[in-house]
């Protein structure tokens, strides 16, 4: 097989793997390919409605001024940050999770070429996903503003290519700086912070300047326009390219391809070394020696201690918790500002907190209830299954309590009623998430967390709807209590319906 043929063959292999991984993420099992594609098409079709609501007003934009350019550029930068976050995750997985590295490394193939293909495959998959997700938004712009908006797809491609290139550079730099054993955790945290950081920074700026959670307030302000560069600045190139400037788009595409090419040329030959160092050094994490006397306590205490220890050492959970905490920074700041001045915006804190608690509780509940690496050991332990489950649910409740109690306590200084409503909302959202996990529990390894949502689509949707429902209910409880009764009843009905159709019923 010639070198070119071998590369083509490997590229096909990579694309097939990426496709099957994606399909497994979407379907959760085999034999549902058609349904997954139909669901994806339906999802993209439905997304046209919210896309129209968000972006429809920009379709007629012809000669944008600074405020419009700022908003479009910020949106593109946000999309880029999210793509970068996703790409870092993909690169990390290539190093740590691919089972075929030994096979590739022991083959007579040219490793620089092989890893070039793998880098290109990451860029392709990230770009492909970005194109799918951006389709509703670009469609809305094309329908409302003409075919010039098709060039926005070109900008999406540039975003994908450049995000993949930067992600590879960041990850390899992390390997060099802090070593392979720490890179996995740090890369996940960096991905989470990058993904959420931009939106949160805008919200924080909006709170400090205008006392609102809306990021658009900052972007459309006179201050932002005053600080922004002149209209002919290259900073606005992505925005101009999206609007239909084909010359600028060509430059950006060329720049994106060159950036990716440079990264491939620089890092592909060293990829093999990096992979070898991962295999050699991720293995030993030593704990400091400690006294051999074990802690005493009941069986449930042993279970809880084990769960807390594993949660503390879980890189995914750490990065997710950090992201949740980051999202809580803006409402916390809003809360702090409201001590000195009365603000109706403080009402917004309650649903944000309840929603964050529900989401985090869902992940925690999966890790503790379903994610059990030593299922046989726990099942053969001399205590009834109900007590095992109770101990695990307690861990979820305690963890959520520890994270959200300080914020709720601070809220009590601003409004006792709102703090009580928020606390109740957190408890109900957490219990709902834990209950859904119990009803749809499928024993799995903790490392399979990424695929948890594919084990039951129903559970995933129920978890999301309940979390949103309880957040809305608490928001209404502090504003329009009668509406909260309706919203709460509806959410309880969703929960009841979920139980009714769950496999654990009865």
């Amino acid at each position: 097989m010639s070198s070119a043929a071998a590369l083509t063959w490997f590229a096909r292999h990579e694309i097939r793997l990426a496709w099957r991984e994606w399909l497994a993420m979407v379907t959760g099992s085999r034999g549902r390919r058609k349904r997954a594609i139909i669901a994806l098409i339906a999802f993209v079709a439905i997304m046209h409605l919210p896309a129209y609501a968000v972006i429809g007003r920009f379709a007629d934009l012809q000669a944008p001024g600074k405020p419009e350019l700022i908003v479009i550029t910020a949106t593109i930068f946000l999309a880029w940050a999210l793509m970068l976050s996703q790409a870092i995750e993909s690169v990390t997985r290539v190093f740590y999770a691919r089972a075929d590295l030994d096979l590739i490394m022991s083959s007579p193939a040219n490793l620089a070429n092989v890893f070039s293909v793998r880098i290109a495959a990451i860029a392709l998959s990230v770009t492909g996903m970005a194109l799918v997700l951006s389709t509703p938004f670009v469609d809305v712009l094309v329908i409302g503003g003409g075919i010039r908006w098709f060039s926005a797809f070109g900008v999406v491609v540039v975003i994908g290519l450049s995000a993949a290139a930067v992600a590879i550079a960041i990850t390899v730099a992390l390997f060099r700086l802090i070593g392979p054993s720490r890179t996995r955790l740090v890369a996940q945290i960096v991905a989470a912070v990058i993904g959420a950081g931009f939106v949160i920074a805008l919200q924080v700026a909006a709170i400090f300047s205008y006392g609102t959670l809306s990021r658009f307030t900052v972007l459309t302000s006179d201050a932002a326009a005053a600080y922004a560069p002149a209209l002919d600045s290259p900073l606005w190139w992505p925005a101009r390219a999206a609007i239909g400037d084909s010359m600028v788009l060509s430059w950006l595409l060329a720049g994106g391809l060159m950036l990716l090419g440079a990264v491939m040329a620089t890092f592909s030959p060293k990829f093999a070394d990096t992979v070898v160092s991962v295999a050699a050094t991720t293995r030993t994490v030593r704990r400091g020696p400690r006294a051999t006397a074990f802690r005493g306590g009941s069986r449930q205490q042993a279970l809880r201690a084990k769960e807390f220890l594993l949660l503390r050492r879980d890189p995914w959970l750490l990065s997710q918790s950090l992201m949740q905490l980051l999202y809580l920074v803006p409402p916390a700041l809003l809360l702090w500002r409201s001590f000195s001045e009365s603000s109706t915006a403080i009402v917004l804190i309650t649903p944000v907190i309840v929603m964050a608690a529900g989401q985090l509780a869902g992940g925690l509940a999966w890790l503790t209830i379903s994610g059990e690496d030593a299922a046989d050991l726990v099942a053969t332990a001399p205590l009834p299954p109900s007590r095992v489950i109770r101990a695990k649910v307690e861990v979820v409740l305690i963890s959520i309590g520890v994270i959200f109690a300080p914020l709720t306590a601070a809220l009590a200084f601003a409004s006792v009623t709102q703090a009580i409503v928020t606390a109740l909302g957190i408890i109900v959202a957490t219990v709902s998430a834990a209950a859904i996990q119990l009803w749809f529990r499928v024993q799995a390894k903790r490392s399979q967390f990424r695929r948890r949502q594919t084990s039951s689509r129903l559970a995933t949707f129920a978890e999301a709807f309940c979390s949103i429902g309880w957040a809305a209910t608490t928001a209404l409880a502090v504003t329009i209590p009668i509406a909260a009764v309706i919203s709460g009843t509806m959410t309880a009905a969703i929960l009841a319906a979920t139980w009714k159709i769950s496999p654990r019923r009865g």
Partner: protein
Amino acid sequence: MKSDVSALEVRGLTKRFDRPAVDALDLTVRTGEFYALLGPNGAGKTTTLRMVAGLLKPDAGSVSILGVDALADPVAAKQIMAWVSDEPMIYDKLTPLEYLEFVAGLWGIASAASGTSAHKLLVSLGLETHLHERCEGFSKGMRQKVALAGALVHDPRLIILDEPLTGLDALSARHVKGLLQERVRSGCTVIMTTHILEVAERMADRIGVIAAGRLVAEGTLTELRQQNGRGDTSLEDMFIALVDTDAAAA
């Protein structure tokens, strides 16, 4: 150190999946003996032992562990029993000592005594240099040893092991075999499935051969030879003859 009460008494144990996996099985293992359960792949060995360990609910039959009805009172049965599967299930993010601390806590063992015995156990299995390392980097053999230490830390009276020597190097296998024989000498009962017939031949007091979910032969090596009609045949030859005969009959 034999006693009148059987360590394990299984009567009419039945489990069906697509086909009968365990078919009205009767099995008795005496207290203080080393019992090897042999059989070809898919014969029903693991399914039988998983039902005994309380990991799988039988469709029919009874299981008694040292006089305790394991189906009626599973908690009491589990208290005196340990299970080690062929795929060591341990926590990657815990060190061997932390893992054993968890197991000791789960079985409600007094903390002062269990810490010292856990340490001794891990050292006796050759893990002294890895006591404070997380298990995520361990080889399969090391993981198997940690799992075995976990099974022994609460001093069970019945130890059930499913292919415990798979993936172990010669020295580790000798460590494990020595540890199990030591336990048997101190009165503990060991039931083990294995494909390594030489291990069964050397270690087991009695051997049971299972095929298609039924016990097709049982006894000491000498008894099995007599049943087979040849005094000098190897266990491997007998095993193949028994399993072949059963497959032909099926």
